[in-house]
């Protein structure tokens, strides 16, 4: 493989005049299924082999991707990519350049306790089936349960014309579970998501009894919940709501490509934009976390990147192109979903660092507000307007957790909200998730419980 890939990249440089050329190849095997109320829709297995070629010619990118390792096809594709780059760059005013990186040769191996490729499909189905049974049998009002399971194993290969050659074993295990409950015409909905890069042993930590019970309980507990009041209120956010907030509301703004595209952070480097209590990281090095890997898809080592320290913006997430523009170091955030698409700046594990307070202390300080414990989804705009949908919430009345509240969401301006963080807890959690930015990336996000002086609560009551 090394010979083939390096031959392709050197051809681009020597024969077609490319400043830079890289090849990413993958040989991946995926297993997945969807189970609905215990019925397996179809157990699936798939092979995805392919190669992506990318070149920089006169400051513009040209890329081609093919589902083949055939030498002639790859040579043809690299020639095309170089021609296409020239066409793209005809009117380029600001040519693209890349930050320098060290040439690396490495072979990264995974060492799972249980490799998902060696666990039978029967066992994977049986495990999901048990979770399904726990969820559906725990309460009559639980009407549906959907479990998606996915694992991926295999190897990715990276070579560029600067002497880097990396082989990296890939391993992901992921499951998403949703349940709905019904009572007197009220429908509620709950979801859980787990994921790991360690191995199938993730299910030892979250066995069916625990996962199914948690899923069902949350759906049922909302049946008697009320709608939130619409308006501005103080709020305590749970670790996974903080995680989604850090990822959606702040993280995307700290992706250097979006920062350059008019995002609000580009002009705030080194400035204090948040409360002293706020420290954020994007970290690709946490062992086993869903967003971790050793090298990104430009062959750059994944780092632990400090984004905000004690309220001051300290860094952005970069690929080689944006690192050059900001005169900074690449951080290892360039990721491509597969060989069909180009690497773009993506988060890894993004989180808020914990401090000292207990959850009780945070709640005690609120006269009337909301405790947003669990999220449903989130989204943000480049101008810093964020929205996080909430699946589990409670009123806080006179310093105590009160009645449950359903279908709430919170919103606000990211920077304004970061200044309003007035207490940060000590109980840290990191969750697995997926992020969509045209492509899907496996990520982690998290943090402790925090308290915010005010957020906008979207409610119809």
């Amino acid at each position, binding site marked *: 493989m090394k010979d083939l890939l390096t031959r392709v990249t050197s051809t681009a440089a020597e024969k077609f005049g490319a400043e830079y050329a890289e090849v990413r190849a993958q040989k991946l095997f995926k297993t997945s299924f969807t189970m609905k109320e215990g019925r*397996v829709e179809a157990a699936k297995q*798939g092979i995805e082999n392919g190669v992506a070629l990318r070149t920089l010619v006169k400051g*513009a990118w040209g890329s*081609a991707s093919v589902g083949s390792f055939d030498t002639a096809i790859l040579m043809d594709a690299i020639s095309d990519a170089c021609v296409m780059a020239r066409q793209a760059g005809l009117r380029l005013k600001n040519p693209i350049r890349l930050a320098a990186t060290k040439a690396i040769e490495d072979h990264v191996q995974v060492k799972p306790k249980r490799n998902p490729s060696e666990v039978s499909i029967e066992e994977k189905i049986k495990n999901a089936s048990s979770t399904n049974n726990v969820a559906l049998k725990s309460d009559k009002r639980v*009407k*549906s349960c959907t479990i998606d399971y996915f694992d991926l194993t295999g190897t990715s290969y990276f070579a560029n014309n600067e002497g880097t050659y990396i082989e990296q074993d890939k391993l992901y295990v992921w499951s998403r579970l949703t349940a709905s409950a019904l009572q007197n015409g009220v429908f509620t909905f709950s979801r859980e998501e787990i994921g790991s890069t360690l191995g199938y042993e993730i299910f030892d930590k979250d066995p069916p009894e625990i996962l199914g019970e948690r899923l069902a309980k949350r759906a049922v507990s909302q049946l008697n919940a009320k709608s939130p009041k*619409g308006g501005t209120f103080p709020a305590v956010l749970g670790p996974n709501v903080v995680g989604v907030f850090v990822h959606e509301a702040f993280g995307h703004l700290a992706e250097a490509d979006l920062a350059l595209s008019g995002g609000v952070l580009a002009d705030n480097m080194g400035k204090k934009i948040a409360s002293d209590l706020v420290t954020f990281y994007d970290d690709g090095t946490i062992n086993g976390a869903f967003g971790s890997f050793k090298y990104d898809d430009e062959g750059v080592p994944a780092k632990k990147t400090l984004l905000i320290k004690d309220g001051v913006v300290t860094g952005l997430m970069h690929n080689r192109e944006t690192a050059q523009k900001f005169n900074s170091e690449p951080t290892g955030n360039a990721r491509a979903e597969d060989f*069909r698409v180009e690497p773009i700046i993506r988060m890894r594990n993004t989180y808020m660092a914990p401090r000292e307070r207990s959850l009780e202390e945070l709640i005690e300080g609120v006269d009337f507000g909301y405790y947003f414990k669990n999220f449903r989804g989130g989204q943000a705009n480049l101008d810093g307007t964020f929205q996080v*949908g909430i699946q589990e919430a409670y009123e806080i009345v006179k310093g105590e957790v009160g009645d449950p509240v359903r279908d709430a969401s919170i919103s606000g301006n990211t920077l304004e909200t970061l200044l309003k963080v007035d207490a940060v807890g000590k109980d840290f959690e990191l969750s697995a998730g997926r992020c969509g930015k045209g492509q899907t990336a496996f990520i982690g996000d998290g943090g402790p419980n925090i308290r915010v002086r005010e957020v906008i609560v979207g409610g119809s009551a």
Partner: protein
Amino acid sequence: MAVLEKEFMLSLAENTVKTAQQKGAAEAEAFVYEGKATNIGIERGQITKNDRILDRGIGIRVQIRKAIGFAYTNIIENQTAIETTVIKALEAARASKPDNDWKGLPEKKPYPQIEKTFDVKILELHSDELVNVATAMLDAAIEADKRVLPIEGGCGAGYVSNAIANSHGIAGFDQATMIECSLATLAKDGSNVTPVCFEFNAERNFNVNPVWVGKEAARLAVSALKTKQMETKKYELIFTQFALQELLYYTLVNAVEADNVQRNQSPFKEKLSTQVGSEKLTIYDDGLLPGGLRTGIFDGEGFPHQKTLLMEKGVLHSFLYDNYTAKKAGVESTGNASRAGYLSTPNVEATNFHILPGSKSADQMLSEVDDGLLVSYLQGAHSSNPVSGEFSVVATPAWRIKKGKIEYATRGVMLAGNIFELLKNINEVGSNERKMGQLVAPWLRVANVKVIGK
């Protein structure tokens, strides 16, 4: 670029079905896919990239003792790889659990004629011609106003073909083209930076209008510069297609899919023949719509596409079925099995979700609003409660309507309510239909929606 021949793809599908039967499948289906696309990418005001992708593969679905297995590969030129994939599918079926509701793959039916889904000009387009299309769009945006920054976008031309065969004699081939221009912009005036605005145009034939996309994307961003806050109360809202696409996909479209109905995940379960929407609302799912972005001869199981009446003057008429859910309910499939190329098994999905237009133009719709909001771009619709329809989303930017005219923009306001209540309160349907992915719809106007201001 040469594409795979119809005969090659069909015989590959048919031979694979035979192989699967010989190796022990009680039923078998093969779906052969080819996709080619060329894209020109724009970043921060200039064209910076050009890429092409070729993706081919086969997905094989088999049934053994009522258990379903599926496997796919993107190596189709090699018989050994295909046989290995057949074996993987059989292995998956043997490992899976029997499903007593399984009543067989679909039977062969006559195929309809469809129009305006394939244009050889798109297939033969060179990437330098596509660069010209992107340039026209970009220039139109930049020349419209100095304050506009086109941050991201591009043009793409794509070709997709698929062949399907199953052990009940289904054998179908379809090919399609699409061309798309899109541009995301913001406007910057000193320290005043607007939220991102977006416009696009996608067509099956080579008749996109890149200049219109560029101008509109620029106009929208500039119109979002002047802003004021608004107070929290109920307003009359006009939803453009951008907003409807977001709001309806996770709720109304979800609610008419038989899979969700059968699994108690739809509020419409007991609502057939009852009033569930405003009398102004008539909706078809139309897999045959000429030039529709989801139009095709057959669905993901080779079942013919059709036009299905979903709602007539607000009365719920039918649900959408694939083969499995139809047989479970004892009705005919409506041809709504969808699949993501060769990578997935079919699932129930709308084709062109067509809300029929009314008679009022956009200007007339606006002129009748005394105090309201024009809503296009939503954040967070995917976190709506898909079953109950409760939503709580951010609209940014949105445009304030006063005495029939758009006065200024608002940023970061929230909308909250229940989509199924909202459907009953639609008081006007525009004549300005456009297609946006799955949705084909005009503007809709709704009274009394809660807006949470800042």
